């Protein structure tokens, strides 16, 4: 009964979104407020319907209703409730249902917030969002129906994908990522609306900047949480494997980041306007490409769900979106001409332009590397692999150059800098960077990557620190404020600038942590007998015994764990396990991680001999890893600070608009 209602909700939802799209277009042409209001209500209804469908699916999962194929494939009677609920997004059909929920949620939120504003743009924003949501409803109505029934009804289901039920992070990482992905439809919708109505002005840019940053924060958090999940669950001691689905998440993040930077140039200088529009389009299309790549089975990945019939649907949607958007862009090119010539080569906008060239370069390289095996197989029939060594070698120099620009941009004024300014702004940061490199060398760091990143990060941080100090100094002098108050006021009254700096601080923290953890760690593999002790770095690890028993929370899962006693900077008992899931051919590693500010001790059980009672352990000492996640959180917080509504600015804007 409930699954049938869920299916019905999907079908009605499809009808509602198709109606909304038509009504938005009609209302946009005629300006009829009643038609537009009914279109908006249809979108709210679609959101309510898909929310009900999700509810129906969660109820089916919790009640282990194996008459639903999705439940039979992804649930078992022993699945704990938490993992039953999050199984909503653990496989193809459910993830599309969840995706549609978030997409229509974003659409409703935007339509509601702007119901009385931007009257010229909003009908077309609504039409674009409605068409996008309708596509996902259609995918659920035809090729990927989440509520397909099955007879005869089995007594037991297959259980969720073993990898996905091994860690509670699965409850956090996909929703964050999906909120980021689906939210990128908003800037795209505003972009389409601006092109259609020829309102490609600064008002448009201000709205789109904000609505790109909102999903960007979720995308950033989702990517970092995904890396953390990979680190905590997969047991290989790393956090980023250049797996196709990781790349698919990174691609729209890169183009969105490029947009966040170049839109400032478009706003301030009236140039790069075509380019910023193109980036908005690219970001949205890349979210579709990512879904296509990982959900259609074109590219193999940890996350690729079963091969399904949705490939053709997504491929068509990508082609249609790209075709229509680019045609619209070309048609409106005369409106998007630069309003003034570009500034000097040594200027903030040129730093942003190079930033964009590099962001697009790295986007292209990652897309190329991800698709290369597909291209080779399609053209020659041979199989090829492109893996981490290639991605690291190609992308590392580009990311290093981007980090350098992070320091250059803020130090240069808009329009152009004189040599005197360049001299004044860069001398101290460069000297500080060199000083830190020499100091690190003297302290015994010999690897090129951490040395270089230390120097660059110092350069960037000193440039920004200098900016803050100079701004605060002038405030303190002119208003008689104390230094901390001056810094606080300066930041809260220029949220965009100082939020951006904070995000850059987070990037520096991440860069240092990535460089150090990649080069200065220890990685040892050892086979120990019960009672044997191993010394690694400052730690002493004793392997006490091997225990095999069913998991308390899910007795179908057999856990074999090596119990360990740890002494050193951290001490105590811990255990690292291999879990045998009934629906997984290989055992799933459950690494144990002891995190400290300076380094993680990471132990994973590679294998064991049940007769000899020996355990083969892989032990990593990963320095600074927690700073990768911390840096990511700082980046997201910086962006949040930047878009946080500023009462004074809002009041000024209202006064300006009223005048």
């Amino acid at each position, binding site marked *: 009964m409930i699954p049938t209602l869920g299916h019905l909700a999907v079908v009605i939802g499809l009808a509602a979104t198709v109606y909304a799209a038509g009504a938005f277009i009609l209302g946009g042409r005629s300006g009829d407020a009643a038609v537009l209001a009914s279109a908006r209500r249809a979108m709210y209804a679609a959101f309510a319907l898909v929310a009900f469908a999700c509810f129906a699916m969660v109820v089916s999962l919790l009640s282990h209703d194996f008459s639903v194929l999705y439940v039979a494939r992804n649930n078992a009677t022993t699945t704990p409730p938490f993992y039953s609920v999050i199984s909503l997004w653990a496989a193809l059909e459910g993830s599309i249902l969840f995706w549609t929920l978030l997409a229509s949620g974003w659409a409703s939120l935007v339509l509601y917030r702007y119901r009385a504003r931007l009257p010229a743009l909003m009908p077309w924003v609504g039409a674009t969002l409605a068409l996008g949501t309708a596509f996902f409803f259609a995918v659920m109505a035809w090729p990927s129906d989440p509520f397909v029934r099955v007879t005869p009804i089995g007594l037991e289901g297959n259980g969720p994908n073993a990898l996905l039920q091994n860690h509670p992070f699965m409850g956090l990482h996909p929703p964050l990522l999906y909120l980021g992905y689906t939210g990128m439809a908003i800037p795209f919708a505003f972009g389409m609306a601006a092109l259609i109505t020829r309102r490609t002005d600064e008002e448009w840019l201000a709205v789109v900047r904000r609505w790109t940053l909102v999903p960007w924060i979720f995308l950033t958090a989702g990517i970092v949480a995904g890396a953390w999940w990979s680190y905590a669950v997969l047991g290989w001691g790393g956090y980023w494997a250049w797996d196709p689905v990781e790349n698919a998440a990174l691609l729209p993040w890169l183009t969105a980041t490029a947009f966040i930077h170049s839109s400032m140039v478009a706003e301030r200088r*009236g140039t790069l306007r075509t380019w910023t529009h193109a980036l908005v389009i690219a970001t949205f299309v890349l979210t579709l490409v990512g879904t296509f790549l990982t959900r259609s089975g074109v590219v193999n990945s940890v996350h690729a769900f079963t091969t399904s019939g949705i490939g053709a649907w997504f491929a068509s949607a990508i082609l249609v979106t790209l075709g229509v958007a680019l045609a619209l862009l070309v048609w409106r090119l005369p409106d998007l001409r630069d309003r003034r010539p570009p500034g*000097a080569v040594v200027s903030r906008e040129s730093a942003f332009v190079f930033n964009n060239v*590099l962001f697009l370069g790295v986007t292209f390289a990652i897309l*190329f590397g991800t698709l290369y095996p597909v291209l080779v197989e399609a053209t020659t029939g*041979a199989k090829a692999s492109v893996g981490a060594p290639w991605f690291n070698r190609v992308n590392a120099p580009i990311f290093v150059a981007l980090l350098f620009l992070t320091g250059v941009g803020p130090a240069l004024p808009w329009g152009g800098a004189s040599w005197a300014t360049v001299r004044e702004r860069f001398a101290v940061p460069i000297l500080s960077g060199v000083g830190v490199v020499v100091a690190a060398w003297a302290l015994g760091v010999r690897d090129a990557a951490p040395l270089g990143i230390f120097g660059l990060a110092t350069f960037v941080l000193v440039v920004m620190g200098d900016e803050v100090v100079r701004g605060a100094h002038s*405030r303190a002098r002119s208003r008689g404020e104390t230094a901390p108050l001056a810094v606080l006021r300066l930041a809260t009254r220029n949220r965009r600038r100082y939020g951006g700096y904070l995000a850059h601080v987070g990037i520096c923290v991440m860069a240092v942590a990535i460089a150090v953890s990649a080069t200065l760690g220890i990685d040892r593999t050892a086979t120990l007998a019960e009672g044997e002790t191993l010394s690694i770095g400052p730690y002493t690890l004793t392997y006490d015994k091997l225990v095999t028993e069913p998991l308390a929370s899910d007795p179908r899962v057999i856990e074999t764990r090596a119990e360990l006693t740890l002494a050193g900077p951290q001490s105590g008992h811990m255990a690292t396990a291999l879990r045998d899931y009934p629906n997984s051919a290989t055992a799933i590693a459950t690494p144990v991680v002891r995190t400290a500010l300076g380094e993680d001790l990471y132990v994973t059980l590679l294998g064991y001999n049940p007769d000899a009672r020996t355990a083969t352990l892989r032990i990593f000492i990963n320095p600074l890893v927690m700073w990768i996640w911390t840096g990511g959180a700082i980046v997201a917080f910086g962006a949040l600070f930047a878009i946080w509504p500023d009462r004074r600015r809002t009041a000024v804007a209202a006064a300006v608009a009223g005048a």
Partner: protein
Amino acid sequence: MRRLALPVAIAALLALGGVVLLELVRPAAAPTQAQQAQQLARELRCPDCQALSVAESQTAAAANIRRQIVEQLDAGRTPEQVRAYFVARYGDWILLVPTSPFVWWVPVVAILVGVGVFAWWWRRGGVAVASALPAPGPGLREQVRDEVERLDV
């Protein structure tokens, strides 16, 4: 003093670059056999994983390949011979970095094209260094407002 700051900074940077270059040119100690084995394991794909190398994977197949690498190096074969052995057995697919030079050229060319496009865009009316105040334009109002807000007057 202030005039000297940037030249000094650049001189320091160049000196540092020189030291780094000398370090790179100085013949490095020959890699130990364990290092060679680790390097090879990083370059070979784990046959039954999605994106992991043999060095990172914990599957039996990966462990088997790691063991074979060590055995073959022990037997006196060069890293190139070991790599060729696995390519002969599994095909080019086993290499995480394709042998085709094409894969290196494409990203480099893409970035050069990007720089070229923007250089061309810049040539239409750009200057090297600003010598005068920026001309008034749509951005100026925003810029002035920002500066005023910064001063909070």
